[in-house]
């Protein structure tokens, strides 16, 4: 199989549609530039976004280039276990909103770092900012590279110029439009993505003779026997129970802590609207995920029929290969537009996430007396700067950075989720617990990963590279340390701890919507100790060699 198999013949069709969609994104950005008057507009779209648009924007931010390319390839290589990994990713926004998104909205914060600052103070906030910037930059570099690869691989254009040009073009429209432009563009991109994945998929399934083609996300049962003939072990679970537990510990707990997703919720027009985003999000993401699995199935069936060996290189482009084989070329060009939409929408969320942390949570704290005009200028500089820095890193990325976004999820689960979620639901978690818990468990996660000290590793192969085996140790440590250090401080630094607890009681009760402070709500230590005890067996199981 050569590049001729997955590149469209008429490159002008591909370039034409690319220019058309980017023209649209720039137009939307420029319209919204005029509506951006202050930092709240720039970072949080003026808290004006309705639930339907916000759900589309959150969905496209969540779904990256991987949806069209990488996932389909990995289904064909890793089979059912990968589908299980992917299924639970839908839980990110629902759990986020329920566990802390609504409370952060009520507080009026700009980001999760802003929340950490109010809840725990400056030092912990800078630590949180450090972790979040690392996670978001890793993610962003991966997407920039993905987009450049789309131009290189699908349109046959040279890689480095594609990377530079696409990074500058994307940075341009995101900077111009701010969060308002990004939100409306992301919503448009989600519609493009859905049409680009699901409609051609129906046509492909119909051409394959699949009876249920008109329900593309579910109607491909006809392909099962062919699939099993080609790969008899496709539907086997393959891994031990611990692997499936680690999906919860590393991925579910991690993705609910992602700062760029939290920020999406904070752009809502009101708190009830923020909650309504959740079911809409589940609808869009659910449909798209189902479509991706179907595309994976169709890919295996197609290659079996052709009698072709599926190289890893080709597996990545299955979606394009199928479209080129079964659909007219203009459809494939539209699918390319869908792939690009997936990538730029994710980049938009990340870029604004990074810029808000830098511009609002770091510079804003170090220079608190800036005028609104200065804040806005710094904000635009932060946005543009983020794009440029990511581009520079993407030109020659350390292998570590591109290896695995799943690894970054595990880091989030370890260093971010405990302090944020516990900070919302308990007044007994204090700055010392949060700081020590996040710092030590995060450091442990990094140290035990295969990318740092090759000999000091837990597990091996896939489970280590993706951070699963490490998470089974570091996430429990994160929760346990945060809880125990907080409670221990109450005993050993009584005065300071009491002041912190009193402050926390006012903040926490307020963020849940209570008008009066009883100092009894969210104040029990019992459930914290039970939670710590529940994490202990997970930690012990994680220590058993894989």
């Amino acid at each position, binding site marked *: 199989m050569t590049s001729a198999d997955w590149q469209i013949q008429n490159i002008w069709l591909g370039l034409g549609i690319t220019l058309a969609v980017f023209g649209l994104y720039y137009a939307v950005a420029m319209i919204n530039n005029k509506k951006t008057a202050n930092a709240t507009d720039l970072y949080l779209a003026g808290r004006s976004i309705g639930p339907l648009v916000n759900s589309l924007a959150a969905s496209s931010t969540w779904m990256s280039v991987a949806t069209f390319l990488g996932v389909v390839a990995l289904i064909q290589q890793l089979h059912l276990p990968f589908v*299980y990994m992917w299924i639970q990713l839908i839980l990110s926004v629902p759990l986020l909103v329920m566990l802390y998104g609504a409370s952060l909205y009520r507080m009026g914060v700009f980001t999760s770092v802003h929340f950490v600052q109010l809840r725990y103070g400056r030092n912990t906030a800078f630590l949180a900012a450090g972790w979040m910037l690392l996670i978001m930059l890793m993610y962003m570099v991966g997407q920039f590279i993905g987009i450049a690869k789309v131009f290189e691989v699908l349109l046959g254009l040279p890689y480095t110029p594609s990377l530079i040009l696409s990074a500058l073009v994307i940075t341009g429209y995101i900077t111009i439009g701010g969060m308002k432009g990004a939100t409306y563009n992301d919503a448009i991109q989600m519609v493009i993505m859905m049409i680009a994945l699901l409609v051609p998929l129906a046509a492909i399934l119909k051409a394959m003779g699949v009876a249920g083609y008109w329900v593309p996300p579910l109607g491909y049962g006809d392909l099962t026997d062919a699939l099993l003939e080609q790969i008899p072990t496709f539907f086997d679970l393959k891994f031990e129970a611990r692997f499936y537990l680690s999906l919860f510990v590393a991925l579910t707990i991690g993705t609910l802590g992602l700062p760029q997703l939290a920020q999406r919720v904070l752009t809502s027009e009101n708190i009830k609207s923020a909650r309504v985003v959740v079911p809409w999000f589940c609808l869009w993401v659910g449909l798209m995920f189902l479509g991706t699995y179907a595309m994976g199935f169709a890919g295996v069936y197609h290659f079996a029929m052709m009698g072709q060996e599926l190289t890893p290189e080709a597996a990545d482009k299955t979606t394009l290969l199928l479209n080129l084989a079964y659909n007219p070329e203009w459809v494939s060009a539209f699918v390319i537009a869908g792939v690009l939409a997936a990538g730029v929408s994710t980049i938009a969320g990340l870029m604004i996430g990074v810029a808000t942390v830098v511009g609002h949570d770091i510079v804003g704290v170090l220079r608190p007396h800036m005028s609104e005009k200065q804040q806005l200028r710094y904000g635009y500089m932060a946005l543009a700067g983020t794009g440029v820095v990511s581009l520079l890193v993407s030109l020659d990325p350390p292998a570590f950075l591109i290896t695995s976004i799943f690894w970054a999820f595990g880091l989030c689960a370890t260093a971010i989720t405990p302090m944020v979620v516990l900070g919302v639901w308990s007044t007994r978690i204090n700055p010392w617990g949060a700081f020590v818990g996040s710092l030590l468990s995060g450091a442990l996660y990094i140290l035990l990963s295969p990318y740092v000290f090759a000999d000091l590793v837990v597990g091996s192969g896939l489970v280590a590279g993706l951070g699963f085996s490490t998470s089974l140790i570091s996430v429990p440590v994160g929760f346990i340390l945060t809880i125990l250090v907080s409670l221990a401080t109450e005993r050993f630094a009584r005065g300071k701890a009491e002041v912190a607890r009193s402050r926390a009681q006012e903040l926490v009760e307020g963020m849940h919507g209570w008008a009066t402070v009883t100092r009894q709500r969210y104040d029990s230590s019992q459930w914290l100790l039970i939670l710590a005890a529940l994490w202990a067996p997970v930690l012990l199981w994680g220590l058993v060699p894989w």
Partner: protein
Amino acid sequence: MKAYKKEVRSTIGFGIGYVLLGHTGLWVVMLGSDNSVRLFGLPAHYLVAILLGSFGVLVWSVIWCIFANRLEDEIEAENAAATGGPRTDANVTASTSAASPAAPGQLAGAAK
């Protein structure tokens, strides 16, 4: 205290529900699977996993959203009862004013 207990218990309950719907893998590993058991042509354990993880989660979200937004009203009602009137700026204590939106850097109540 009624709405508070409802809030805590429902959060735990809905949380467990979400996790169970999105994580059928553990059950399948423990109970075993059989590719010949089919639903709409697809192996049952596969179809159940992807359906629960999409439509199941969607339905659960709809239920949660309705419940949580109604609970918001119950909390408001308890606030009104506790403060002896509709919730206004005058009735709101330092708890909410400490958490009100602030300009960057000028973070209300932020510890140094």
